[in-house]
């Protein structure tokens, strides 16, 4: 299955990955080659086969809602690329 340049640009927008024109071209060819490998799955009869959502016997795990110590505030904030005091600075969402 070949993928088009436009499809690559659309997927890159969905994934929020910036790409140069060269990167888009290279990605188109590489993704096409990889997607071709996936065609073998059409040989497998999966009629009526349930999907493995996760592995056997997995269920939602419940726990009591109780207060526990969390990470140190300074340790967390010190990783922020832009910081003002105890706040993280972000770029404007609305212009």
């Amino acid at each position, binding site marked *: 299955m070949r993928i088009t340049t436009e499809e690559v640009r659309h997927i890159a927008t969905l*994934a929020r990955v*910036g790409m140069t024109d060269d990167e888009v071209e290279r990605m188109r060819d590489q993704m096409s080659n990889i997607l071709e490998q996936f065609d073998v799955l059409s040989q497998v009869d999966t009629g009526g086969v349930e999907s493995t959502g996760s592995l*056997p016997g997995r269920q939602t795990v419940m726990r009591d809602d109780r207060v526990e110590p969390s990470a140190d505030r300074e340790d967390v904030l010190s*990783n922020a*690329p832009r910081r003002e005091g105890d706040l993280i600075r972000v770029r404007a969402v609305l212009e």
Partner: protein
Amino acid sequence: MSSATPGAELARLTIHEAAGLLAEGRASSVEITQAVLDRIEAVDDRTGAFVTVTGDLALEQARAADERIASGDARPLTGVPMLLKDNMCTRGVRTTCSSRMLEDFVPAYDATVAARLYDEGAVLVGKGNLDEFAMGSSTENSAFFPTRNPWDLDRVPGGSSGGPAAAVAADECVYSLGSDTGGSIRQPAALCGVVGLKPTYGLVSRYGLIAFASSLDQIGPITKDVRDAAIVLNAIAGHDPRDSTSIAAETPDYTSALDGDVKGLRVGVPSEYFVEGMEPGVERAVRDAVRVFEDLGAVVEEVSLPHTPYALAVYYIIAPSEASANLARYDGVKYGFSPQEAESMWDALEKTRQHGFGPEVKRRIMLGTYALSAGYYDAYYLKAQQVRTLIRRELDEAFQGLDVIAAPTSPSVAFRQGEKMDDPVQMYLNDVFTQPANIAGIPAISVPGGMSEGLPVGLQLMGPYLGEATLLRAAHAYEQATNWHKLRPGL
């Protein structure tokens, strides 16, 4: 403390040998740790196994371990130097995932595996190099530098846990922890001639393991022999309320499972794992290994697992799909790489991910986003999850009549640096024999199983769900009947 054991020898010890010396007072943890740090200093500029060396922390932990040993409170891992793959969070110690995205990231908490090893009195000598975000089979995708195979520095160590495997092979640590999503513990262990165990999905907590593909990821030990793998598994296995996929079951003492023979053990050899294009030296070594089991009294039979050839496509749909969701968190706001200049929030987001991620990570995010996107979800993701069910069932049924399945770990020995970097499909084929165990969630181990053209070959043994005890016993019996695990690279 006696100084009768020279430093070079101290760096070569297994865990159980080191524990013996420590218990008898014939070496201190500080001496062993210093020997390992000296070894790192001597060889790591050639192997490139470490992203970060934590020398000061290691010596501090070693001094604490010596006090603990003196007080009579030692555990099997107390005072023994180890390496963690650099995708496991360590509080206060930079954790990079070998990515520009996390180059300066310092976690505010410890992964559960790190916390458990620290509780045992372990000594952290550093963080091991990997393919960026654990995506790759050669450790050439590290954003910093490639790791090289200690057996031949022109060759790759495998991946993605190439740093942790090369470090064990080169005696730059006594043992390490890797993570395995499609073979990332077993394939580098095979290519570096050491032992690598991927436990049952959920046996070891993933809390603090930086997520790649959450339904496949599992942490496990890389060691110099099978007994060491059992010792490390004892320390890290078990339920963790912080990982909702963690199995709530009692875990046995895996070292006690090592004793006993393998007479009557039912070993299956699947014909689908001996494919056209695999190296003759690898096939020969694995066939010889199977004969060792026969000589030990095991019952060997050929079996067929016809869905095996579909595992590669299933894996390369499911893993990138989960990765595309897991890696959506890297937005350059709370932590991680962030561009200096950006016109808007959206522009900043796209630039963060354009410049913070390397080519393979971007390829997988793109593939996963595509497979999950409207119009393609049924054809790719749902189909892959259905075939996953068939692969899992097929293995479950095979284990009704078998105790272990024996197969090659990798179709080839270590390949040359650069050989497969331009062709993602060729690179992906390296994991063709290791992916089924992740897809089915079952345990699998790679042990040194011979040599081909001077390079190590890995023998892979797979076991049923939570079948670690039998798996380790089989691997140990094979290992003790051969000498492959005693061979060392001449680095």
